[in-house]
């Protein structure tokens, strides 16, 4: 099962899903478009602050798609988690190509809920 209610994501463990994310951005009175080097970071964490899912996306016309793969949650316990999206303008990378900072880091919305639902059968 996979559905989104407002900003709450509901996903059965191990299920796949795709969410199209469209950013509405403005700089002053002008529309703002993220560049090809800019990135969107989608993160899911548990109550202990441990990262469950972390995906980085390049945007096109301020849009990107979050893909949930089977391996993202197949071995994760059912329950409530938190997620958010952070936009990084001109990201900085470490030696391992991990994003460590950027010219600007923007978190448009406070952390929301991802409900990971239990399943009966196991893949």
């Amino acid at each position: 099962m996979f559905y989104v209610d407002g900003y709450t994501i509901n996903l059965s463990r191990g299920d796949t899903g795709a969410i199209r994310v469209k950013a509405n951005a403005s700089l002053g009175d002008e529309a703002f478009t993220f560049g090809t080097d800019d990135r969107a970071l989608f993160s899911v964490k548990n109550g202990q602050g441990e990262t469950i899912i972390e995906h980085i996306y390049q945007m096109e016309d301020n849009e990107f798609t979050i893909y949930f793969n089977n391996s993202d949650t197949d071995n994760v316990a059912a329950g409530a988690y938190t997620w958010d999206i952070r936009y990084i303008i001109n990201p900085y990378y470490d030696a391992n190509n991990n994003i460590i900072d950027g010219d600007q880091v923007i978190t448009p919305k406070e952390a929301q809920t991802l409900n990971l639902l239990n399943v009966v059968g196991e893949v």
Partner: protein
Amino acid sequence: MSESNIPVVTFDLQVSETTQAPLDSTLTVSGMAADAAAVGEAIAEARGALQDEIDDITTAFSGLAGSLFPVGSVIGTLSAVAPAFITGATWVEIMIPATWGDLEDGSRDYVDKTEDDTAGSLHFWRRTV
């Protein structure tokens, strides 16, 4: 840094029309070509077998209209009636057409219908994860 250089951003979420991750994303599809013949045979066998199981499957999935079901949700049934279909598969999706059972209004029909809808239409993907 001047605040005037920081864009104001909001975002909207939209569940994609198909909630299946594309094959060219992070999934490995090696082995698909070699297994095409076996998958085709297994699909034909599973279709015939599942026609006898329609009532059971409808009962199991009522209220979950429009969802995609990992094989884990039905593998107990399929493995009993179509073991060849399961052998070697690491992950399979099954989409249930809107004409089956008590699916709610608004459920999406992703599959190509046959002329005989009573037989149902099944669409299987087989992927190596």
